[in-house]
Each structure stands twice: as C-alpha cells, then as structure tokens.
C-alpha cells in the first residue's frame, strides 16, 4: 500500500519527537532562554546530517523510490515574508510550546486541549489565505 510508508514515517517521527522531549513546552522555554544545549543539539545535529546527506544525494544523483530525480524545490527569494512571518510564528511557538508537527503528536499523547490550538492555527492559516495578496512578501 502506497500510503503505508508515510504512515510508518509519521509514527517514527511522533515517537522520536516525544522521546527527545522536543514536544515539551518546557524544553522550548529552556531553549529560548539558552539554559540548555538539548534543543540546540537536536536541531544542530539534524541539520548537520541533513546538509551532509542532501549533498550526497545531489552529488551522486540518488533517485527517489519511484526512480525520479530528487528535487528539493528552492524557497522563493525574499526577506520580508520570512522575517515577519517567522517572527509571528516565533511568538506562537514560544507561547504554545508547540509547532505544527508537535501539535498533532501531543494530541496522540493525550493532550486534547491541543485541539483548540490546532483549530486556532487553522483559523490563522485561513486568515493568511484571505490576506495573502495584501501582505508584503
């Protein structure tokens, strides 16, 4: 089944983020206060290995499972949307202690009040969609 591999990756991701405590509000607070290396170690080692393997994928022209070229779309150029959008996201991330992956994972851990955060995130997405053409990008 075509979707099974995605389900398994999702399960793996959920387990890793809980076991690493990266889904914990407390760990996010501690990170933004620079009081522990934990989160920096997680993100730093993930990015270090990510850079290395993406470079290897490109250098050796590794094909995807479907035999196609691996094509990671470059992000659109610009500054405004990234700095403004990023800052707004940062406010929410530090307040909720959860970003869009952990939100779902935390529902799985039994925190059902997280549905309120998810609903509000959907509302925020919807409002962004309405205002997209009026915002500087």
């Amino acid at each position, binding site marked *: 089944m075509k979707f099974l591999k995605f389900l398994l990756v*999702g399960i793996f991701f959920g387990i890793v983020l809980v076991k690493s405590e990266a889904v914990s509000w407390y760990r996010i607070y501690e990170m933004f206060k620079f009081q522990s290396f934990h989160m920096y170690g997680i993100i730093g080692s993930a990015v270090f*290995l990510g850079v290395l393997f993406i470079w290897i994928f490109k250098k050796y022209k590794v094909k995807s499972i479907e035999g196609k070229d691996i094509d990671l779309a470059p992000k659109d150029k610009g500054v405004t949307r990234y700095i403004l959008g990023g800052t707004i996201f940062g406010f929410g991330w530090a307040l909720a202690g959860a970003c869009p992956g952990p939100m779902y994972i935390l529902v799985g851990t039994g925190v059902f009040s997280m549905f309120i955060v998810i609903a509000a*995130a959907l509302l925020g997405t919807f409002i962004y969609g309405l205002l997209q053409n009026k915002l500087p990008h």
Partner: protein
Amino acid sequence: MEYILQPWPWYVSGPLIAFTMLMLVYFGKTFGMSSNLQTLCSIGGAGKYSDYFRFDWKAQRWNLTVVLGAIIGGFIATQFLSDGSTIALSSETISELNNLGFNGVGESLLPPEIYSWENVMSVKGISILVIAGFLVGFGTRYAGGCTSGHAITGLSNLQLPSLIAVIGFFIGGLIMTFFILPLIFGA
C-alpha cells in the same frame, strides 16, 4: 529496552529527525508539517474564499498520512515507550518557572498551568491557546514553513530564505520568552 524507555539524548534524537526528513525526500516528497494546515483548510472549503486554498488537496494525502502517523507515534511513545521520567531541565529553568507560578515543572510534557482543562476553561486560559495557535498558523504560512520545513529541511538544503525565517523564529521566540511570558504568568 531500558535505553528506549528513558528519554533519548540529543545525539540520538537529532540524527533520527534527519533520518525522518531523508526518508520523505527519498520517497519523492519533502518534510514540511505546516503545509497540512493549508491542506486542511482547503478540504474544509476555504477555496471558496481565496486562491491560496484552491489546489488539488488529494495530492497532499501523503502528508496527512504522516500527520496521522505522528498522532499514533505520540500515543505509542507515551503508552509503551516511556518510563515516566521527569524531564531533566536545567535548574535555572525550573527555578525561573517556579517563580512564574509553574508547579511540577517537567513532570509532564506540557505545563498544566496552560493545558489543563481547568485553566483552559478560564478566559485567560483559552485566550492563551487561541492566540498562540493563531500566531503559529498565520506565521508559518506567511513564512512558508515551520520548524520542519525551514529549520530542518530548508537549512539542510542551504536555503538562505530558511535561515532568514529561522532568525525570525528566534526574534519572536526570544521576545515572547523574555518579555511577554513574565507579563502573562508573573502577574
């Protein structure tokens, strides 16, 4: 088994997150969790109101499947793979949060002062969750990605826009943590 049940150190977790991203890239996709917010709005009929939601959401079912898996993963990790250890936060973090009125810091993944139903049922409590969620959803779509799309995948692909977005994440996160959280909880 003991090592699996204990919290995993950063040097195990970070590489496993990189592995998650690499698997999705190998499957011909990408690692970006916040796209699902746009997809869910589209499924809910938001295409009637904005072009932003007018796309073939069925092409995104793979990513919704990742979300479903992530929820199951969260369940498995807490039910079967945890020994109930308190999170080993730094002592500074614990004492600061105690001063802000947080109790039992690190005994659960999330502070009951924010996420328990008792707190959620107050005007202040629900406002915190709604505002936080709104900012996450609006901000991540404005920035075109979140921690997975920009901080992990974008930086791994050496994207300058992702670095700018991550700087933004920190500007917002630092202002919130240093200046706004003490106003919300310290008073």
